[in-house]
């Protein structure tokens, strides 16, 4: 057994940017600590080279056992784990499971299979997936890392791309699934999986939401017990599933409709129904009937279905690397928001429910972010400090559908990390490497939350920028910088002087298929809820779910909290509570926020026109969000897994094998 520790140079620059040779800002986190596990020396060496090229701190080992020991010794030692699936001493899935269970680290698995032709799969998906990434490399393979595209696995996979494997990976908690040979671009983007977001749940008056909290098994993200029941997706509480439709008294198509929170349970039901009907024949109405959930509307199902399909697609395209994010808070220090290329369909956990104003940033894997401009809930996870929340959800609060759609694409990867894990190993708030110290400097909750202005739905959360700064100053910087890499030029302008970041979606990213990236990373971001005690009793898979819920809910709640006044100062108030909530990447929760209805309706229309779910930009968004939300990492559950056909769970990426 050989363990080599290779310390790459950790580079921070004052501006938290990493400049590449062309003096352009590189947007990926420098110094992220990665553990690479592969029994094949050639592959390991390649991984090592790639990761070092990305300026990550790399540690390699050819034995899963060793990796496990290292992780057990110090779970915060690494931010991300990339593991091969086929290994002699321990199956990659097993490692994933153990890692996930014990440490909530998102794991990415690698299996040898090159799926170049993935790129040729339906244009729609591709587009979404890699708008940004493709700029860099048209042939890049978005390994579905983030984002879940419901592609049909069959066409993409062969050998290792067996959908069953992918699903397996997902259920085991893989954040992302990469296929060998792994490409540099993919690795550059995997950090996106690691965004965790701590979201302070906003106190909700909604009764049903509030009551849930009790089941924090999954770990509630919100520090304080998650007042927002709604946002707590991960709740196991079935009642919650019903969501929110019931809550809103004055729902109207034009008003903000409470989002349905696709909790794990709900999503599970959904998937079971879809499986029962057959993905091809699964129409919202029938799914709805099968699910038999009170209060759930056909619209909800339809939008969720759309997302789910996208997700599956994405997963199927994924290759075989599983990326796990773990990490300590420090990760955030060097995490810099890099543009997200459609890769990750991160579904922000924030997808949970309805947060009218909550813009949960979904962290999309590489492409996504860029496109969506919404930083996935990168929140700085600082022990003490405020959590930065990256609302990636570009909720169409005001009905800017386009933004929503872009959000869709951007699915934050939900990392099923138990909220109680403080060390949000995932890059907490991938703020451009600003130091944690900075964040932590004030224990006080000066959380800068991007303004969630209900009206302004196009808030793009600059992941990095927003989070990292506690102070307006820094946030400003970040904001500007982030805007750069988020490819959201427009959002840059939106940054208010006070540093609050707004979320917006870049116009360019409209394809819902942002989920494209095949890597579904289930970054298990330990959300640190304030005072949340997560008991990770569940399997890793479950965690994933939990975390999702949490994230999303947290995200939402935070957002919610922040939403009200567009105050530049960030959401000092509400946010302050969520000091320690940082969510890593989380899948976009349902973005069907206030305008969900509206969006949905258009989506609905589309759907109605023949169940033709296309990840249309705007429309898709909603559904994607829903889907994302719903896609919680699931624990291994055979009934949930699509028979090898679809990847499931936008959150957990475990897409194809």
């Amino acid at each position, binding site marked *: 057994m050989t363990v080599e520790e290779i310390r790459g140079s950790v580079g921070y620059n004052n501006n938290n940017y990493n400049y590449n040779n062309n003096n352009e800002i590189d947007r990926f986190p420098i110094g992220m600590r990665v553990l690479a596990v592969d029994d094949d020396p050639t*592959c390991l060496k*390649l991984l090592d080279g790639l990761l*070092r090229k990305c300026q990550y701190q790399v540690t390699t080992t050819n034995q899963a056992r060793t990796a496990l020991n290292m992780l057990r010794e110090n779970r915060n030692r690494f931010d991300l784990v990339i593991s*091969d699936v*086929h290994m002699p001493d321990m199956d990659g899935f097993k490692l994933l499971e153990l890692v996930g269970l014990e440490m909530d680290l998102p794991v990415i698995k690698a299996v*040898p299979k090159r799926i170049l032709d993935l790129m040729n799969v339906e244009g729609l998906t591709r587009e979404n997936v890699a708008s940004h990434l493709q700029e860099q490399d048209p042939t890049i393979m978005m390994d579905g890392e983030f984002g879940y595209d419901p592609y049909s696995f069959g066409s993409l996979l062969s*050998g290792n791309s067996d959908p069953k494997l992918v699903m397996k990976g997902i259920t085991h908690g893989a954040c992302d699934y990469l296929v*060998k*040979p792994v490409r*540099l671009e993919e690795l550059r983007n995997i950090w996106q999986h690691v965004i965790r977001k701590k979201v302070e749940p906003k106190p909700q008056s909604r009764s049903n939401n509030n009551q849930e909290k009790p089941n924090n098994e999954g770990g509630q993200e919100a520090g304080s017990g998650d007042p927002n029941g709604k946002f707590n997706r991960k709740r196991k509480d079935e009642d919650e599933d019903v969501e929110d439709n019931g809550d809103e008294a004055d729902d109207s198509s034009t008003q903000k409709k409470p989002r349905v929170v696709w909790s794990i349970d709900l999503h599970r039901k959904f998937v079971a129904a879809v499986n029962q009907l057959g993905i091809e024949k699964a129409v919202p109405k029938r799914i709805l009937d099968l699910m038999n959930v009170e209060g759930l509307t056909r619209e909800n199902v339809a939008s969720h279905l759309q997302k789910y399909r996208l997700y599956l697609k994405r997963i199927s395209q994924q290759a075989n690397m599983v990326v796990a994010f773990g990490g300590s808070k420090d990760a955030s220090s060097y995490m810099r928001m890099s543009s997200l290329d459609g890769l990750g369909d991160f579904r922000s956990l924030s997808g949970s429910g309805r947060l009218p104003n909550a813009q949960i940033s979904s962290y999309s894997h590489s492409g996504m972010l860029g496109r969506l401009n919404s930083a996935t809930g990168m929140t700085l996870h600082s022990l003490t400090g405020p959590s930065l929340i990256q609302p990636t959800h570009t909720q169409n609060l005001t009905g800017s559908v386009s933004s929503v759609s872009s959000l869709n694409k951007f699915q934050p990867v939900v990392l099923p990390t138990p909220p109680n894990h403080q060390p949000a190993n995932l890059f907490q708030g991938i703020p451009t490497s600003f130091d944690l110290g900075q964040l932590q400097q004030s224990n006080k909750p000066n959380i800068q939350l991007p303004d969630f202005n209900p009206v302004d739905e196009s808030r793009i959360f600059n992941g990095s920028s927003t989070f990292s700064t506690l102070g307006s100053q820094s946030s400003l910087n970040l904001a500007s910088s982030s805007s750069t890499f988020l490819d959201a030029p427009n959002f840059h302008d939106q940054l208010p002087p006070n540093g609050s970041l707004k979320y917006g979606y870049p116009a360019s990213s409209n394809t819902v298929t942002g989920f494209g990236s095949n890597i579904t990373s289930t970054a298990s971001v330990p959300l640190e809820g304030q005072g949340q005690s997560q008991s990770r009793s569940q399997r890793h898979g479950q965690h994933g779910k939990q975390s999702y819920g949490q994230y999303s809910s947290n995200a939402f709640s935070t957002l919610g909290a922040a939403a009200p006044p567009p105050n530049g100062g960030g959401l000092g108030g509400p946010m302050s509570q969520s000091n320690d909530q940082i969510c890593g990447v989380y899948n976009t929760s349902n973005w069907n926020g206030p305008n969900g209805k509206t969006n949905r309706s258009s989506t609905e229309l589309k759907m109605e026109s023949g169940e033709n779910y296309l990840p249309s930009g705007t429309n898709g968004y909603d559904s994607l969000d829903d889907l994302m939300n719903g896609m919680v990492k699931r624990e291994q559950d055979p009934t949930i897994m699509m028979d090898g056909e679809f990847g499931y769970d936008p959150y957990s990426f475990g897409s194809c094998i």
Partner: protein
Amino acid sequence: MEQNHTKRQIKVTRNSLFEQGYLDEQFTQLEDLQDDANPNFVEEIVTSFFSDSTRLIRNVETALENYPLDFCKLDDYMHQFMGSSSSIGAKKVRNECTQFQEYCKARNDDGCIRAFQRVKQEHATLKRKLEAYFQVSL
């Protein structure tokens, strides 16, 4: 002048490897990873591949001598082989591995044996060519 000539030669040799399908763009990625910090990355990784794959080949040969053939194991070996060969961009080798796997799936003894012969051949050819290439380029 002579140096330039050699450089050109190197380029030609390299290009032909791509043109003839021995290597694919993954190899280019390897080259991209080579830099001052890693001046011999390509050669190192290729060397590592050949030593590891030689071992794998021996394992497969042994497995092919035991009847009935253990297709699962063979498939596993090929899976590994495929992973590493695709990691260095060994296109033809990888393709032959795929073929082999097909025969494994079909549980075709003869097919496997023949396919494996081809794998070995491609492997040997590539090794030769890359060794020659490194000799002139390094």
